[in-house]
């Protein structure tokens, strides 16, 4: 992407005014999505993102400069800009880079961008037509097939020089069911850190039918009652509960500046002993996996909570300096225009000791959240919220009528203690996580769990 000599020159310039560490990050990302609505291909988004971000550290102070000018002059000017903002010292620094290979744990068989567009359209139409034909009440279906080819380069003043490529593929189908002037929606959106071979595992038609079934369930559902109740949250995207309620509060971005309710709690019991939670960026072909993070460190499997005890935070270089702890391969960013920070990869609650059928049977009256939507958290207070996309009332240990429009709210530290049953069907769902370093792909996951008491928003 950029010649080694230019990188060395840029790093030397970046360090020349007193910085103690400098880093060049460059990306060339091809983003291609095919969008379908009303049964027809509506739009092709075909964008190339290309640019450089140069970061200089002095202790825990950072300067970050970016440019889309990829010429030698553009990159060196960007480095000089960063150096000028950092300090007034004048010194000569030499940087010698050592190119290092990166082992690819996520091979791609069928490139999701260069594959014949007709084949890609066929996959999308299979999914969307199956969704539309599922029931006559399905009034509209929107679908997107997304391919991303994200090539990155990281070089730093310690001599690190690595290049990598992350490819991912995702299909999103949203169905709308209509009756008597009312709309309800359902969706399905699996993705993988692989190419079109992901559809060997996921039948596009089943994805479409899943979306439409959910829309129909919601169309037939009454509003969810409001109040505190026992809630069983299903596997897959249900793991968003851990992502929001706890994951963000374990990121060095928050912990390193004292802005997390999890500060100073390493080694303490913070969750029910049935809870073990892991962040693992190495899982082959997973949506949130990468070979190296955006500071060039290999990703790793980090046990965050083991049998209820807090074991680790997720730490990037700046966090490592602030906290005096080792980096954990969690530094991520959307692209060159964002300064990286500590982020999650594939984060999940591990399988536990309880049988799934026992979990439902244990609930006298409560909510079964079969599928979750997105949410958000304030890491300082731990207050979180998330939406239930498909939910059912549980009565006398049996799943009964569907309810819609529910949300779950609580605080992270409390819900970790209130998760009192953990089932055995661990599975992950895919999301795009938004934070200060942009929007990045992350997996969330868990087996079926029971929360003994949580506030359910409804009416």
């Amino acid at each position, binding site marked *: 992407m950029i010649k080694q000599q230019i990188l060395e020159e840029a790093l030397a310039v970046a360090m020349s005014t007193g910085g103690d560490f400098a880093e060049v990050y460059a990306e060339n990302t091809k983003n291609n999505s095919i969008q379908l609505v009303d049964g027809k291909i509506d739009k*092709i988004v075909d*964008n190339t993102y290309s640019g450089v971000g140069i970061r200089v550290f002095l202790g825990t102070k950072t300067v970050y400069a970016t440019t889309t000018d990829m010429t030698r002059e553009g990159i060196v000017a960007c480095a000089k800009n960063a150096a000028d903002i950092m300090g007034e010292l004048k010194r000569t620094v030499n940087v010698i880079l050592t190119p290092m290979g990166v082992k690819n744990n996520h091979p791609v068989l069928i490139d999701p961008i260069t594959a014949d567009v007709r084949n890609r359209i066929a996959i999308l139409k299979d999914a969307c037509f199956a969704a539309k034909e599922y029931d006559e009440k399905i009034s509209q279906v929107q679908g997107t097939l997304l391919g991303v080819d994200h090539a990155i380069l990281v070089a730093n003043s310690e001599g690190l020089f690595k290049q990598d490529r992350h490819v991912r593929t995702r299909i999103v189908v949203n169905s709308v069911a209509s009756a008597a002037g009312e709309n309800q929606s359902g969706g399905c959106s699996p993705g993988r850190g692989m190419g079109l071979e992901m559809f060997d595992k996921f039948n596009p038609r089943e994805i479409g039918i899943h979306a439409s079934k959910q829309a129909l369930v919601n169309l037939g559902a009454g509003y969810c009652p409001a109040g505190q109740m026992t809630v069983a949250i299903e596997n897959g995207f249900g793991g968003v509960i851990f992502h929001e309620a706890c994951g963000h509060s374990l990121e060095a971005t928050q912990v390193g500046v004292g802005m997390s309710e999890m500060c100073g709690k390493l080694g303490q019991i913070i969750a029910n002993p049935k809870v073990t939670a892991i962040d693992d960026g190495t899982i082959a072909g997973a949506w949130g996996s990468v070979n190296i993070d955006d500071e060039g460190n290999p990703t790793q499997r980090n046990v965050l909570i083991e049998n209820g005890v807090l074991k680790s935070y997720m730490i990037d270089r700046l966090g490592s300096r602030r906290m005096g702890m080792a980096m954990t391969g969690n530094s991520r960013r959307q692209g060159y225009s964002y300064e990286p920070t500590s982020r999650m990869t594939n984060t999940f609650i591990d399988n536990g000791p309880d049988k799934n059928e026992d979990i439902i049977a244990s609930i006298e009256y409560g909510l079964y959240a079969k599928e979750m939507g997105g949410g*958000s958290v304030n890491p300082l207070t731990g207050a979180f919220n998330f939406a239930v996309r498909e939910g059912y009332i549980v009565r006398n240990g049996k799943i009964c009528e569907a309810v819609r429009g529910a949300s779950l709210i609580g605080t992270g530290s409390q819900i970790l203690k209130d998760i009192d049953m953990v089932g055995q069907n661990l599975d992950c769902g895919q999301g795009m996580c938004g934070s200060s370093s942009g929007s990045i792909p992350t997996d969330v996951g868990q087996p079926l769990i029971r929360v003994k008491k949580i506030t359910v928003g409804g009416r």
Partner: protein
Amino acid sequence: MNFEKLRELLETEAKSEGLEHYEIYYTSSEGLNAETLEHEISSFSSGVSAGVSFRCVWKGSMGNAATELFEENELRSLVRRAKANAEVIENGEQAIIFGGSEKYATVAESVAQMPQVSDIKKLALSIEEQIYGESELVTEGTQSGVFAESSRVELANSKGLRLSNKLFVAGAYAQAVVNREGEAQEAFDFAMGLDETDALASKSVSDAIAKLGASEIPSGKYNIILDGKQMRAMLSAFSGVFSGKNAMLGLSLLSGKEGERVAADCVTLVDDPLKTENGVATAFDGEGVATYKKNVIENGTLKTLLYDLAYAQKAGKESTANGQRASYAQQVNIAPFSFYIKGGELSDSELLAKMGDGIYVTELKGLHAGANSVTGDFSIESAGFAVKGGKLAGAVKGFTVAGNFFRMLEQIQAVAKDVKFGMPSGFTVYGSPDVLLGEMSVAGK
């Protein structure tokens, strides 16, 4: 590569590809951003960027491709990619490269200069210092920031239309963190422009302190006022329902309601692309159509949905000049500009008095997940203040407010005078005064 050179190269390539109708949309920007932590500038960022998109009509459809990589091979491939992309489009939209409007409003181009790095640092540090000076409860995590961005838009097409715009947005923000006996709370406030930052510190600190010691409330029906910030966030979450395209595709329940009553009498919803105060005024939209101020809802009646050229043509109407392109990377997308609920007669405190008892909601969280624009349903984590006898009576938290956006518009009982605008994103800024919604469902303890 400058814009003119880029344009020539793309035009030459377009001709050699046999393309007659095409458009080049170019955006560039330059920005500075300083952030403080613990009495130092903890991070400073500075960026320059530029990108271009090429769209063309081929076999009756519009194809599009965009890039930031200004290398000759990439730019030639851009034209070929746009053409290839047009080949697979099936939407039946009339592909229109616009010849230009008769008249464009005059929007004074910004003459503001980028501030000096040293001035930005100084201002950020002084705001942080003021925050710490406000109260002994202010603690670590407290931050302030200052940002400035200047940007340029160029549109050139095969019909000879040439339009350009220059924008400048700057502002400052304060995030106060307070801690009292182990209970931490925070509040965020911002100011547009770099000259009116004096109130930031006191406002953010008093807001954070006011949240301390919040109590939980039982579930039930409560009268609700949404403050202007929350109501504008709600408008943002549901702005897609005003798109003529969504209406036509059955994705908005406002479909077929133009000319009908959709909101209470006191609701007038304005879209004003020419409003200069928000820093993102423009005389033309992303397709080159002249923009104008309009009432989308007027005294409760839906006067018009928002249209671009293609969907106006499908609906048998004129474009409302809402075919927006926030940057080169975004394709034409129907979206509002300065989009706000017009202020009424009452002051904020008179609105509280009118409600009597209820909840004044000052925080809605997770709107991106908890609000569904297709159904209008929402169920949102909230915080705010109990109101008794028209006066604020203590902070409340940990509850949700649930309802339906369309029902809510119909039930609004009154709107206050003072319209509060948010920060711009692209060309879009939302604004609203405090709004008395009447009775809503609340889930609490």
